[in-house]
């Protein structure tokens, strides 16, 4: 968040940041949906909150709108704390996911709804006693309302539709009415909650361009929520990638695409090859047993890293061209309209490659990658850490289960300890009963030769692990850890907070 803090100081006087979210946490029934998020949004920007469903992006939007109150933290609008202000008093309007057009009102009255309620500055009145001019509030006149509604209808291209019944409109037209209804009040910020989700592909593309035009013409700040990465890349000035209630990366579409901060962002934004490698030295990375040049430096010698190569950045050559040492066999090829998408197996990793030139299935190819197309990321985590208690002679509690460990140091029952479990020491079993505890597969990324899997256990703590098997999301699995895979250390309680909080320690690098 360093970038934002600096910008905040610079722009503070100019009111540059229209929205500031400070350390906001939202907990629903013991589930943390938004976890200590901080974010600031520049006036006039088109900002997209992007993430898979259930990542907390809609909750964050609803907190900005005022429909939810943060459990912790505060939200500022133009330097004013609006955390406790109800939605009808915020100069923010929302375009709802399913439009929420009032079914008993026609198009005109839907759009005029907010105007009829609005109070604007009227003629100042003279106080009879003191003679001072006092500001008054008045309602919009009928003519003013008509003028505003007609202008809004014109902006969204629905002139002459005022008297139509909202139920008789098509999805795209309803969408436009919803936008008109929200912008007619001239809000400072327009929130859009997956507004194009219900439209078909062609309509969606049209509305994307139109929304972008509306944004440009009105100049107000748009905060847009979507799970569609393509939509986010096309429309946004800035993208905020969110996963599991945590901001993964904030940046321009180009930056997010070219330099994803971690494996999650790389995987979520577009097709990509994510694999594991080792930094041999500055500007040299090894993967698939070959050494490649890259543009990154500053890693420890032989540090394990994740790396991303976009499918369109890989160049294929006929075997024997001598362009590259890395060879593979084409195992499938699909024509995708403008280019071919081929899967090339190198024996270590199956690369997805996009190229305008097709190589037939089963042909052997060599492939090269430009140094600037290899994007290197620090590995987010390699070890799970829990602060917990020894429960028996040689057992320790982890996520609600008693795991056996090698108690050669003689830890006593009830002693507080720090337990570390490396990602590659954890085994998953098909049958939950075969494991010490059970859990559900949360996420799975192919890292070249192995998968990195996140398992949600029943007591809400997560396990990360590396496995050769592919697991499906939401699969129920058992977790087994061999005794030699559990490292137990004495834990000295230093901090009040740590007594209660048991965390999976993040060996985080580049994440925000």
């Amino acid at each position, binding site marked *: 968040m360093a970038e934002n803090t600096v910008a905040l100081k610079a722009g503070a006087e100019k009111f540059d940041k229209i929205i500031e979210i400070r350390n906001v946490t939202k907990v629903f029934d013991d589930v943390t949906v938004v976890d200590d998020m901080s974010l600031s949004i520049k006036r006039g920007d088109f900002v997209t909150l992007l993430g898979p469903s259930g990542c907390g992006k809609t909750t964050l939007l609803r907190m900005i709108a005022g*429909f939810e109150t943060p459990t912790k933290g505060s939200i500022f609008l133009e330097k004013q704390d609006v955390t406790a202000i109800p939605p009808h008093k915020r100069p923010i309007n*929302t375009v*709802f996911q399913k439009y929420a057009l*009032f*079914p008993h009102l026609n198009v005109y009255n839907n759009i005029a709804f907010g105007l009829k309620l609005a109070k604007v500055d009227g003629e100042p009145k003279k106080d009879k006693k003191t003679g001072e001019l006092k500001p008054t509030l008045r309602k919009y006149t009928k003519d003013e309302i008509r003028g505003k509604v007609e202008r809004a209808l014109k902006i969204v291209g629905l002139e002459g539709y005022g008297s139509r019944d909202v139920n008789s409109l098509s999805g795209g037209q309803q969408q436009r009415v919803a936008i008109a*209804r929200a912008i007619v009040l001239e809000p400072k910020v327009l929130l859009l909650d997956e507004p194009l989700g219900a439209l078909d592909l062609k309509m969606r593309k049209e509305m994307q361009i139109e929304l972008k035009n509306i944004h440009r013409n009105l100049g107000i700040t748009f905060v847009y929520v979507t799970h569609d990465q393509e939509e986010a890349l096309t429309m946004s000035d800035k993208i905020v990638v969110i996963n599991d209630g945590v901001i993964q990366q904030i940046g321009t579409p180009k930056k997010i695409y070219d330099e994803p901060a971690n494996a999650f962002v790389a995987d979520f934004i577009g097709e990509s090859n994510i694999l594991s490698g080792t930094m041999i030295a500055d500007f040299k990375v090894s993967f698939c047993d070959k050494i490649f040049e890259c543009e990154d430096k500053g890693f420890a010698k032989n540090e394990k890293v994740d790396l991303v190569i976009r499918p369109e950045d890989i160049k294929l050559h006929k075997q024997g061209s001598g362009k590259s040492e890395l060879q593979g066999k084409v195992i499938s090829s699909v024509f995708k309209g403008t280019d071919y998408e081929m899967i090339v197996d190198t024996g270590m990793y199956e690369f997805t490659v996009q190229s305008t030139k097709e190589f037939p299935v089963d042909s052997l190819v060599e492939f090269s990658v430009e140094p600037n197309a290899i994007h290197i990321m620090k590995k987010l985590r390699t070890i799970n850490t829990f602060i917990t208690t020894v429960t028996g002679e040689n057992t320790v509690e982890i996520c609600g289960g008693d795991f056996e460990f090698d108690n050669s140091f003689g830890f006593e029952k009830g002693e507080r300890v720090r337990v570390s479990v490396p990602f590659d020491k954890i085994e998953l079993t098909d049958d939950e009963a075969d494991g010490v505890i059970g859990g559900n597969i949360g996420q799975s990324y192919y890292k070249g030769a192995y998968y990195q899997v996140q398992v949600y256990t029943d007591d809400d703590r997560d396990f990360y692990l590396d496995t050769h098997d592919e697991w499906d999301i939401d699969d129920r699995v058992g977790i087994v850890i061999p005794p030699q895979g559990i490292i137990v250390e004495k834990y000295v309680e230093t901090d009040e907070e740590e007594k209660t909080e048991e965390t999976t320690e993040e060996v985080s690098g580049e994440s925000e």
Partner: protein
Amino acid sequence: MKKRAFDKGIFAFPYMILSAIFIIFPLVLVLVYAFRGVDGKFTFDNFAQVFTNPTNYMLILKTIGIALITTAICLLIAYPVAFVLASSHFNKHTILALLFIIPMWMNFVLRMYALQSLLNMINVKDSFWAAIIGMVYDYLPFMLLPIYTSLVNMDKSYVEASRDLGGGDVQTFFRITFPLSVPGIISGILMVFMPTFSSYAITDILGGTEASVIGGKINTLFGERLTWGLGSALSFILLVIVIVVMVAGNLITRASNKAKSDAADNSIVGGRIR
């Protein structure tokens, strides 16, 4: 795909037979008796007798009055309750809604005598208003349920949209929530008004002499005086009044149905005669 061997309509046959025997046939009988003189010939005599007897007018007016007062009180009590029960805070607790339904599980006559004893305990004698209390007590769930259903099924995003556009709680209620619940209100009104109009048991038990209604008179004409022709004519007039109210109700529903609330589909119309 296999071709369907028979029409789905066949499943409606049992009901059609039942309704022919127990609904259409009795109605025809009522009609026949209404136009049949003592000598067995076609006559308008029965109707003439009904219309020339001023006590009948009084009775019909009184019955309509009781039905209207009951319906109005039910609506006034049920709407706020339904609104509270349907709010997100309470609607997880089905038990609260159940509390209003449980009395319906008890025998109706028993309930009325229990109420009578209760009212006597607090010194309320059998009277017009005691009858109204009984009616309201008995028919409240029929008003509560349709309103509750229409409120609870209402898309919460309408309320949120209204608040988003600057509507406070009161404005949101009168401009959004209430208009969208009108179909539920109309169902409730019909479901209370129809049966209260034709019921006589409650007024018989609780009303004393003050609250005799048209239903009671029909009962007397059939049961005690055995003047079936007269009773049938009066029943027929009652039926016409009910049909008129029903059609009016449906017309209003259709008009407000342009609002196509999801909760609109329960405008059940029906009457219970007790």
